[in-house]
């Protein structure tokens, strides 16, 4: 081999020498430009300093430039997104120049929806994160990559059940029942949060989070909860890449609840007069039986290439997760291909995207248990007595007929089948044609289809009462989602001297159809076929509701436009307007208007600040806009419809029963959110300190809610309508400081924080002349919606002690001798809120030569948690049929009629989310590898909190049930190894 190479090189050198001899006057200076991964950088500009001589690198990143007579020259190398480099080159001594990504210009372009702007021209509140800013580690959902990284963007992971996505809230809670999930846009395709499942985490180029109304109003009636725009990696012009990314982690349970063991249980049982018949004499560690160490793997192979106006990138990913509860797992496979072709002298650009994601999960049953304790499977471990055996002597699963609807959690975990499979497919085509200079017409169409099915089998041996009654229950459901989007746009960009204009007009049509069916059979002779052969069930056990189907659709038609104008790069102005018509609105309110405007002033461009050196960038921003929220409106919500209501007996036979399912509300419409934002961006201390501060106030009007209506005359005690209003206020700060910035070493301290305040302004008004009296609405365990108070305010009885019989006593606040447990009871007191008042993240990073390290610490606080599971596991009245916490022994409560503040705990926490070390192995001597990086990552390494439950990160989505701990799947702590290889 070596001989061959020597021979080749020798020939080349000989040839070069001949050439040099032939053109002795001109000296060639050659070299290669590579990126931080040692991949070639085609298209980089090489200029000989002090001359106009320049060239660009070819597809292999190689350049050659000549300068008469010189033996050495100094060249400058520039490439968008990289720091400009200078290099002295000696004639005939090829060099390799490695460019360093420019932290400032990497995020140069910000995607703002239906277009992009330079970051310097941005007028709204937008957080831009590049691939490098995203959290590393065993990522199963792109949202996990954002945790702690953006001010005002709170990512909450409740438990680590495989396949369970985190929730995200942008600038707090904007709606009560209307949905708080942001709109997700992936390469132009709009969708709900489930669209994120189709994004391979390592294929993300950038994430832009639109936060304020001036940024989101362009999305009109879907913009209120914020917008997350994800741009995936594209192939760099004309290069070829083959890259493999891998991350494998070991997942362990980070915290468990301490229940009584068998001896302790029996000791307490005797104290509390539990009959000996309740002690079944075993010593079972249910917790260990049902848990194991989990494994999470991520693999992505991506490659791309292109030439002559053609470019493609393809990738295939596998995300494989084995949960820490036995028999729970999740698999997600994503294949994507993206191709761009230019034509008509580069005036026409066609971009096609195809993405197919196949996911498959085995979940533990979500809602199971005895009548007195229905929860997830995991929480059922806690209530099972440690003295209960796992098996009967005959080898069948143990069950106790003296405990009403007893379940054996191990039997459930081993025998219940709960599969969910989804096929997610989307394709899109974008065609842009430049009509004249600056004027572009575009067409974009996307089609997404989700075909899913679930299969569930509850065998009699699971010990679940209904399964025993029916000798097995099997069901399948199929569902289909069909989401289409089409838009036609006209874009005009023009510079008139110091004026810069960028305007766009769009017509957009979106249609979504949902349909599906459900079938169930019961009574199986054996469990072999599980849910795969419903016809094997017992026909005589078919009951109403065992089959059903549905179909509905929604349409959204929009006209929108935006103008960006800047003067001397100093004064920036953006205005947008959108008009949305939606099928789900009531007939009286079919169309809504959503305007916005914002301005920015770049002070550092002003002559009076030109000569100062304190600030290299200083920009003031201000914006206002109206956005809407319509995701809470389901199709047909505004109509009075008659639907299926089981079976009734009439006229001597069983007949299908019909019921009016809801009241008509022709006025039903979107929620309106008015938001004002002011902000400042600055760079100072020799470019070392970068920061932004944003302050906003937002009011949600026409608040969708199930308002309390009097019964009579209403058949139901509530009605969905647009009546009340909410207020959100907040302050956000993002800072990044480069402590060390030398050739070999960098140390950056970065962080963000946000303060959030929300308040229920009003829940009352009238609907059709009927006065509403909605206040003190239960919003979780002891948390309420109270006018003038934050969402989910805890209004709760105060624990006093216990009486002689060890029953809990509470403070009789109004001293009337009666403890009233009603919602408005004067015996309750206000004690904090369910949603956090502040969130923060601290993200330092360090690098030295080939070594790098980064950390994420994040936290939130100011909220309370009602630890309901602790209360349920603390009363000794339950001891005869259940286990209790070790902590219940000193508390010694026999029973309680109340849910008092004894169970209310601080929800503040600081989590060491991520610690990662990476090392880039020198590949200069490895034949086929241009870049090789290995990394070690730990996640959830430490939680600092006073909260006594498994994890303080619970449902703070703002929806009903917020702020309560009802028992969660445990959080995992993970340790992972990562590998990134780029092939030559």
């Amino acid at each position: 081999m070596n001989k061959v190479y020597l021979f080749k090189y020798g020939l080349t050198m000989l040839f070069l020498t001949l050439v040099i001899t032939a053109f002795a006057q001109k000296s060639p200076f050659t070299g290669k430009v590579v990126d931080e991964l040692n991949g070639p950088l085609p298209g980089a500009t090489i200029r000989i300093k002090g001359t106009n001589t320049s060239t660009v690198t070819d597809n292999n990143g190689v350049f050659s430039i000549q300068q008469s007579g010189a033996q050495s020259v100094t060249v400058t190398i520039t490439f968008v997104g990289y720091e400009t480099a200078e290099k002295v080159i000696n004639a005939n001594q090829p060099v390799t120049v490695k460019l360093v990504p420019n932290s400032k210009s990497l995020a140069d372009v910000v995607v703002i929806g239906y277009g992009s702007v330079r970051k310097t021209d941005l007028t709204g509140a937008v957080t831009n994160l590049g691939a490098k800013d995203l959290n590393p580690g065993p990522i199963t959902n792109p949202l996990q990559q954002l945790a702690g990284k953006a001010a005002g963007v709170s990512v909450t992971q409740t438990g680590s059940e495989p396949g369970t996505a985190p929730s995200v809230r942008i600038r707090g809670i904007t709606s009560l029942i209307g949905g708080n999930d942001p709109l997700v846009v992936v390469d132009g395709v709009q969708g709900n949060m489930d669209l994120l499942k189709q994004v391979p985490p390592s294929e993300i180029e950038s994430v832009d989070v639109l936060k304020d109304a001036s940024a989101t109003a362009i999305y009109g009636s879907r913009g209120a909860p914020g917008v997350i725009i994800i741009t995936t990696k594209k192939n760099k012009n004309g290069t070829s890449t083959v890259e493999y990314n891998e991350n494998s982690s070991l997942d362990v349970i980070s915290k468990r609840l301490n229940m009584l063991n068998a001896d302790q249980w029996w000791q307490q049982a005797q104290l509390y007069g539990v009959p000996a018949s309740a002690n079944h004499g075993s010593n079972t560690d249910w917790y260990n039986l049902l848990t194991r160490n989990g494994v999470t793997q991520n693999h992505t192979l991506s490659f791309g290439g292109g030439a002559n106006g053609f470019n493609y990138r393809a990738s295939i990913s596998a995300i494989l997760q084995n949960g820490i509860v036995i028999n729970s797992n999740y698999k997600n496979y994503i294949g994507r291909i993206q191709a761009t072709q230019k034509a008509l002298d580069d005036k026409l650009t066609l971009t096609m995207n195809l993405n197919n994601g196949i996911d498959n999960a085995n979940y533990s049953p979500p809602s199971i248990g005895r009548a007195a304790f229905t929860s997830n499977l995991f929480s059922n471990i806690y209530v099972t007595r440690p003295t209960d055996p796992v098996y009967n002597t005959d080898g069948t699963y143990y069950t106790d007929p003296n405990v009403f609807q007893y379940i054996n959690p191990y039997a459930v975990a081993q025998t219940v089948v709960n599969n969910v499979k989804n096929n997610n497919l989307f394709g899109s085509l974008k065609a842009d044609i430049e009509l004249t200079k600056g004027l572009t017409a575009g067409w974009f169409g996307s089609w997404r289809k989700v075909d899913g099915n679930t299969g569930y089998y509850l065998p009699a041996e699971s010990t679940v009462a209904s399964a025993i009654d029916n000798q097995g229950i099997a069901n399948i459901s199929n569902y289909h989602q069909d989401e289409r989007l089409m838009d036609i746009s006209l874009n005009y960009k023009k510079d008139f001297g110091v004026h810069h204009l960028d305007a766009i007009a769009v017509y957009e049509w979106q249609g979504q159809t949902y349909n599906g069916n459900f079938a169930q059979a019961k009574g199986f002779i054996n469990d072999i076929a599980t849910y795969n052969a419903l016809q094997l069930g017992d026909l005589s056990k078919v009951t109403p509701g065992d089959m059903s189907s549905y179909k509905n659709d929604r349409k959204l038609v929009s006209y929108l436009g935006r103008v960006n104008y800047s003067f001397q790069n100093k004064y920036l102005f953006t205005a947008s307007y959108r008009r949305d018509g939606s099928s789900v609105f009531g007939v009286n309110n079919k169309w809504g208007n959503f305007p916005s405007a914002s301005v920015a002033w770049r002070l550092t461009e002003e002559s009076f600040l030109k000569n100062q050196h304190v600030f290299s960038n200083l920009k003031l921003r201000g914006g206002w806009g109206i956005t809407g929220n319509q995701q809470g409106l389901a199709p047909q919500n505004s109509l009075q419809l008659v639907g299926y209501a089981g079976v009734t007996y009439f006229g001597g036979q069983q007949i299908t029963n019909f019921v009016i399912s809801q009241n008509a509300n022709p006025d039903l419409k979107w929620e309106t959110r008015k938001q004002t934002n002011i902000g400042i961006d600055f760079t100072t201390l020799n470019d070392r300190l970068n920061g932004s501060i944003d302050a906003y106030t937002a009011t949600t009007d026409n608040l969708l809610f199930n308002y309390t209506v009097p019964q009579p005359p209403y058949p139901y005690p509530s009605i969905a309508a647009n009546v009340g209003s909410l207020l959100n206020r907040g302050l956000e700060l993002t800072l990044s400081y480069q402590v060390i910035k030398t050739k070999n070493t960098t140390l950056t301290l970065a962080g963000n924080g946000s303060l959030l305040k929300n308040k229920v302004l009003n829940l009352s008004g009238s609907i059709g002349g009927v006065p509403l009296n909605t206040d003190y609405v239960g919003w979780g365990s002891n948390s309420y919606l109270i006018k003038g108070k934050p969402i989910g305010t805890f209004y709760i009885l105060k624990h006093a002690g216990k009486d002689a019989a060890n029953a809990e006593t509470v403070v009789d606040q109004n001293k009337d001798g009666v403890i009233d447990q009603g919602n408005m009871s004067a015996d309750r007191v206000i004690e904090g809120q369910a949603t956090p008042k502040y969130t923060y993240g601290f993200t330092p990073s360090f690098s030295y030569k080939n070594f790098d390290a980064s950390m994420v610490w994040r936290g939130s606080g100011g909220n309370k948690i009602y630890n309901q599971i602790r209360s349920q596991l603390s009363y000794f009245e339950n001891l005869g049929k259940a286990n209790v916490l070790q902590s219940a022994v000193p508390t010694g409560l026999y029973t309680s009629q109340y849910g008092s503040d004894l169970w209310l705990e601080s929800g503040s926490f600081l989590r060491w989310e991520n610690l990662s070390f990476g090392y880039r192995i020198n590949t200069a001597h490895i034949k086929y590898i241009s870049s090789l990086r290995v990394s070690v990552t730990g996640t959830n390494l430490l939680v600092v909190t006073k909260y006594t439950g498994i994890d303080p990160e619970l449902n703070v989505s703002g929806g009903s049930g917020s702020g309560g701990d009802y028992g969660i799947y445990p959080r995992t702590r993970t340790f992972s190894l990562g590998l990134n290889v780029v092939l030559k």
Partner: protein
Amino acid sequence: MRKILTSILIIGLGAASCTKVSENVYDKYPADQFYGSAKGADVALAGVYSQVGGNWNGVGYAGADNGWYDLNCFSSDEQVIPHRTTGDWQLDFARLYQRQWLPSDLIIGNTWAWLYKSVYTANLAIDQLTQAKADESKIAEAKVMRAWFYYLLIDDFGDVPFYTSNNVTVDKIPQTKRKDVYDFIVKELTENVDKLSETKGGVYYGRFNKWAGYTFLAKVYLNAEVYTGTAKWTECLAACAKVTSGGYSLHPGDIDATNPVGSKYYELFGDKLPDDETILAIYVTENIVSRNIYTIRSLNGANGLALIGFSGWNGTIVPKEYYDKYDANDIRRKQFLVGSQAGGVTYTADVSSLDNPGAGPNEGIRNIKFFPAKPADGSGESNDFPIYRYADILLMEAECNVRLGNGAAAKPFIDQVRVRAGLSALAGNPTLDNIYDERGFELNWEGHRRQDMIRFNKFTLAHGFVPAVGDFRKLFPIPTSALNANPGLKQNPGY
């Protein structure tokens, strides 16, 4: 270039036609189109009946839990669910039995919500039937049902909001005096009851026929003194006579070894109730149409498995002092389980505690009056539920006669009921206490006891574990949820 612009314009215009945002409905029926037809009107009437059967979440007259039946039965002296030392059963039921309920109690709110949803459904049916020019008897049927729901409302709550058309706002629905609602009920019944069908059973099984209508009227008159202060004993007797003219008789009480409880008498509480005695029933088929949980809720786990094949819930028991009143020869005593039972369980008659620490796992007498009819499962049986039956008519006739001072006329009515139960006729003319006790023996667990206790002035007295309470407890409080939604409502005195 012009061509391109033109084609964009064409595409744009084409798209502009895609601006319709009207709604499509694929999988439901629009209400206005649905009820307009004759079939739709029938369905509207059937919908009112669907309100009567018991369902989870406290819906229905009887059969499931946490609704009207539990409220009216557990507040009397005939049954209770004690908390268990094994940790089972919350204290709510024991609290109801001890008559310490609060306006915010779930069962009270459920009962209110169920009854007003029923009134709404009846109003809707009356409107739809009238618009569809339906058969007069069907309109009458819906009106009688609405009156029946109002009767249940004033019986529990006293002065209640009153409305007869759904197209009104809440300010037009004043809280109406108990007496005025009573007057409405009597008027509505007297106007409509003769329009009802005379058919017994068949297509009228589970429906208000003429005889069920008169039974209902008799009940209203029977309690008129409680509702209005003015007794209507004679009117009650007249209504009872109408029912008798329908040709009812007592179902035999013969010993029957094939019957799981041991007597033909228990066919009155089985599947498809016999037409000879049953006047109005709720049709039940295991969890499909309504449900009946009364036996499985009473038995304990092992006894349930042995006796009926499903683990019992170890809930309801019969207080010892109630059981002790039964004569040893009474066939109606067979419904109680005490002592050694199938499944190796021994139930003790004595109960040590109702709430704290609660009753031991096998304490308390159990009841199998509704011995599970198949199909059944662990969450409900198929026993139909008797709302009204002829024995009740006989006892009402006996009571009215005694109250009118006509003891001799009363005697044959009560004796019929006693003899069928395997007892001897009374030695002398019946007293009010005889009637009260006999009603207790015959109609226990059928939803009558609270009303009877109030009418006989026994409701507030102490019994067993339960101390005496104030008179205001004769009415339940207006639920907190209703007061919150409608500040115009006034709470009943004492709460």
